[in-house]
């Protein structure tokens, strides 16, 4: 038969995974050759072993799933030929490798177990009657399964220095520096000014009076103990030698 099995072209994310793959259902292919009692098998072989595969002469010689590592091929998905008849039944794809239960139980029935390795496979459909193979399709193109990478290959190092971070950091740093300088400068100037100042009257700094209040003339009050040599109105300066300006 000239039909070539293939992976369905439609967008199915799971059509090829690490251990399974999907095939288009071969509808109407076997109608001319099949009787009611015939069965259609799927032959799965490694791509390099497909040329050496020989169709089994009868059902007893069908290579089972377990022999895949040894003989590099097996047959599975035994279905009645009527399932592939023309009015196409609903699932339009066949999934190879979807049955995980039969792998462990070791039943001799045709087992559609998961494929053990990603190595490219080729498939063909084989119509078997009571006396042996009656028809077969062509081999498919090699189907390569997915190989998964280790997550340690993912590069999770973050990229450096997005523009937002640079803007925020630089502006804030400059604002903070200006503020700190302003505070230190103001405080320093005040401290320096108060150290230098000894008399009423002219001071080196322009002072703005924020509170106007009436000063009534009073006699000089006796100073509290410990305050000496202080002009009135300047508060109490403790006795200490004059500091150099």
């Amino acid at each position, binding site marked *: 038969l000239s039909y070539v099995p293939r992976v369905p072209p439609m967008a199915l994310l799971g059509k090829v*995974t690490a251990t399974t793959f999907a095939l288009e259902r071969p509808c109407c292919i076997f109608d001319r050759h099949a009787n009611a009692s015939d069965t259609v098998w799927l032959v799965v072989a490694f791509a390099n072993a497909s040329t050496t595969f020989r169709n089994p002469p009868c059902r007893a010689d069908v290579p089972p799933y377990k022999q895949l590592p040894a003989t590099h091929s097996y047959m599975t998905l035994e279905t009645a030929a009527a399932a592939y008849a023309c009015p196409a039944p609903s699932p339009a794809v066949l999934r190879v490798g979807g*049955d995980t239960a039969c792998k462990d139980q070791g039943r001799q029935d045709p087992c559609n177990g998961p494929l053990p390795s990603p190595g490219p496979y080729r498939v063909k459909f084989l119509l078997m009657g009571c006396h042996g193979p009656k028809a077969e399709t062509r081999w498919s193109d090699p189907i390569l399964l997915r190989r*998964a*990478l280790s997550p340690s290959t993912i590069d999770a190092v973050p990229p450096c220095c*997005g523009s937002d971070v640079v803007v925020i950091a630089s502006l804030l740093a400059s604002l*903070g520096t200006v503020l700190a300088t302003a505070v230190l400068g*103001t405080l320093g100037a005040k401290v320096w000014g108060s150290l230098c100042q000894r008399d009423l009257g002219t001071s080196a700094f322009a002072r703005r009076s924020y509170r106007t209040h009436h000063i009534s003339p009073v006699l000089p009050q006796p100073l509290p103990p410990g305050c000496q040599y202080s002009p009135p109105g300047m508060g109490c300066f403790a006795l200490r030698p004059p500091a150099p300006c």
Partner: protein
Amino acid sequence: MAKSEDCIHILQGLLVFGNVVIGMCGIALTAECIYFVSDPHGLYPLLEATENNDIYAAAWIGIFVGFALFALSILGIIGIIKSDRTLLLVYIILMLITFAFEMASCITAATHRDFLTPNIFLKQMLERYQKADPANNNDKWMTEGVTKTWDKLMVQNHCCGVLGPSDWQEYTSAFRLTHNDADFPWPRKCCALDAQGVPVNLDGCKLGVPGYYNSNGCYDAISGPVNTHAWGVAWFGFAILCWTFCVLLGTMFYWSGIEY
């Protein structure tokens, strides 16, 4: 003297207004940061497992800075109205300290937001989701957190993986060690589920038939809230700091002119 009296009053008025705005922004910052810390989207376990949850630290600092700004703005208003040098000096110094903390919070939020790339979530999901044998209690806690969060994310947002369900196919994972590829090309939560949480069509989900599985990635559902969180803290804090800078300069100018 009348003109300088007017200038003084205008300056006082401006500073009081500035402090009122700072007080209100402080309350707003506290409210915003409490909202973020309460984690309404349930993404904290993912960030905790990346060991990079400093945007939460930034939000916590924001809560306290907001309160401090509010309290200090009241202090500032009182100090300006009374023209009291001591009060204003205390105000300026405490405000500087608060400024420094808020600077730290903004820069932390902005920097650590950049750490949270899709790859970091992908790696964490692959290494931790449904990990079977955790090394110690801390690992077990993080694994449970990551698994529960991803399950909730995938079901609520109808998404799968970080960039898509193919993440589970392209990389091996802790999930893959316990769930074989043929039955679980991707987790069951990626399938379209009915009201009871059972996949609508399991075979369709495994094959990837459109409609029976979630084909989008979850990265948008994660990065949206995280971005809002980080930028909310960083940029709002930055705006407050710019305003506070101006008010502080004005206050220092006012303070330097007050007579003893």
